[in-house]
C-alpha cells in the first residue's frame, strides 16, 4: 500500500465530518472516491494533503507515518494535490504557478530539480501558449489544466484529484480526461480521484470507494462490478 488511512476522523469545529475512515491506495492503481454532495469527499482529500487536521486516526504514506507531518512535509514526501475548485494563485502567472509546484522537490533525494518537466507542457499544450498570463484571468478549463500541471511539477508519487472536471465545458472535459489517462499510462502515476461521473470513474479507475455521511459504505473493483450496482448510492 502506498497510502493507508486508519480510522481517520476530521471535524469542522464541533461537527464531525469523517468517521473512522479506513482506506488504502495501492502503488500504481487509480482509485475513485464517489458519493453525493456533502458526504465528506473533499474533507477526506484535504486531510490526506494536510490542508486539514486529522482529529483521530493515522495516515501512512510509502511506509512512513505522516499523521503529524504538516502539509508541506506531505507534499515533499510525494503527495501531489489538485484541490476542488482548482485554487490556482490568481495573481501569479501560469509559469509562476507551475514554479510554486517545484517547492515539493525541496529535500527530496530521489528526484533532482531541473525546472518544469517538459511532459507537463506535452500533456497540456495550452499552458505553453498562455505561460505569461495571470492565472486568475484563465478559463475554468485552463485553470484546471494548470492546477494539474502544478501538482505534477512536484513529481508526486500519488496524485490527489478532487473533481477535476467539475464546472468545465464538455469539450474541455474530454481533453482533461484524456490527459489524466496519459498521466496514468505514460507516467504510471498512482491516483486517488474524487469523481461524480460514474462512467469516467469506471473506465479510469481499478477500484472505488463510496462515501456516505463521512464513512466509506462500500468498496470494490470496477473490473468485476458494474457501475449500475452502485449508481443508486450516488445519484439522487
Amino acid at each position, binding site marked *: 500500500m502506498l497510502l493507508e488511512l486508519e480510522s481517520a476522523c476530521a471535524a469542522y469545529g464541533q461537527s464531525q465530518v469523517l468517521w473512522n475512515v479506513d482506506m488504502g491506495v495501492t502503488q500504481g492503481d487509480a482509485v475513485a472516491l464517489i458519493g453525493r454532495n456533502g458526504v465528506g469527499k473533499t474533507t477526506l482529500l484535504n486531510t490526506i*494533503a*494536510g*490542508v486539514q487536521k486529522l482529529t483521530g486516526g493515522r495516515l501512512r504514506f510509502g511506509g512512513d507515518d505522516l499523521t503529524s507531518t*504538516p*502539509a*508541506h512535509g*506531505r*507534499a*515533499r514526501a510525494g503527495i501531489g*494535490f489538485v*484541490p476542488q475548485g482548482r*485554487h490556482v*494563485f*490568481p*495573481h*501569479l502567472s501560469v509559469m*509562476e504557478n507551475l*514554479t*510554486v*509546484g*517545484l*517547492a*515539493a*522537490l*525541496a529535500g527530496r533525494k530521489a528526484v533532482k530539480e531541473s525546472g518544469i518537466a517538459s511532459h507537463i507542457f506535452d500533456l497540456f499544450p495550452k499552458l505553453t501558449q498562455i505561460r505569461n498570463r495571470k492565472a486568475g484571468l484563465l478559463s475554468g478549463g485552463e485553470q484546471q489544466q494548470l492546477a494539474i500541471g*502544478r*501538482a505534477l511539477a*512536484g513529481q508526486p508519487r500519488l496524485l490527489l484529484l478532487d473533481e477535476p472536471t467539475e464546472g468545465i465545458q464538455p469539450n474541455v472535459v474530454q481533453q482533461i480526461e484524456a490527459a489524466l489517462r496519459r498521466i496514468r499510462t505514460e507516467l504510471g502515476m498512482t491516483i486517488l480521484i474524487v469523481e461524480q461521473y460514474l462512467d469516467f470513474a469506471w473506465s479510469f479507475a481499478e477500484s472505488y470507494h463510496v462515501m456516505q455521511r463521512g464513512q466509506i459504505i462500500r468498496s470494490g473493483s470496477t473490473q468485476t462490478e458494474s457501475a449500475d450496482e452502485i449508481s443508486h448510492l450516488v445519484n439522487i
Partner: protein
Amino acid sequence: MHETAFLIGQIFNGFSVASLFIMAALGLALSFGLMRVINMAHGEMLMLGGYLAYLTLLVVPGPLGILVAMPVAFIGAALLGAVLELTVIHRLSARPLDTLLATWGVSLILQQAARNLFGAIGVQVVAPSWLNHTISFSTGILSGLTLPDTRLFILAVAALILGGVALLINKTRLGLYVRAVNQDRPIAAALGVNARLIDLCVFALGTGVAGLAGVILALLGPVTPTVGQSYIVPAFLVVILGGLGSLVGTTIASIMVGLFTALIEIYVDVSVAQVLLLAFVILFIQIRPQGVIAVRSRALEG
C-alpha cells in the same frame, strides 16, 4: 530666497521624510500583508538599529563606520525580529488583539532596556565627513536652495532598499513563495512551501529593514530609547493608507505622507501639521477604504 527654490527645497524634504517612512513602514506592511499581524514593537527595531550604529561607530570609527553599521543593524534587528516572531507572534498567530498587546509589552521592555543600558538622554552618532556637505545653488531661480548630503544619502538608501525588496519579492524563488503564501496559504503549503519559514523570513526581513532605517535616523538626530515612537505612528498611517500590505501602495503612501508633512509645515507648525495629517488620512480612508492599492489577495504584488 526664490519662491521656486523654497518650494523645491520643501518637496525635496518631503521625499527624504518619505524615505524614512518607507523604510519604517515596509516591514509593517510586509508582515501585515502576509500574517495579518501588527507588531507594536516595530519602532524599537528602529531604535535598535540606531544604537547598533552608535556601538559600531565606537568600534569602527572613521569615514566608513556608517557603512559597516548598516549591515550590522540590519542583521541585529532581523535576528531580534526572528526571536520575536518565534517566541511571541507565531504563538499568538490566531489572536490579533493578543498580538497587539504582547508586542506593545515587548516594545516597553525594549525601551526600558535601552534606558538602562544607554541612559534616557540618548547617544549621538556623528555623521561621517563625506556626508557633511550640502549642494547649494546660488544663481537662477534655484538660488538659495540647499540640499544636504545626508538627505540625498537617505533617498539613495531608501531607493536601494525598496528596489532590493521589490526584486526579492518579484524575481526570486523565495519571493515567489511569499506571494503564493500570501494568495493562498493552505494550497501553497500543500504544494510543498514551508509557510511557517516564509513567515519567519518575511518578518525578519521587515525588522531588518527597520534596523537599517534606525541607522539613518541616527544620522539625523540623537538616538533615544523612544526614537522609534515618533516614526511608528506615521508608519502605521502609511501602512493603512497604502492598502495594508502592498509594496507599491506603501511607497506611494509614504511619498504622500512625506510630501503632505513637508508642504503643510510651510504654513502651520509641526503639531498642527500632525493633526492635519491624521485628518487627511481619515478623510482619504473614508473615500477609499481599501487604501491606495486594494489588497488582500493582491498584497505584495509589484
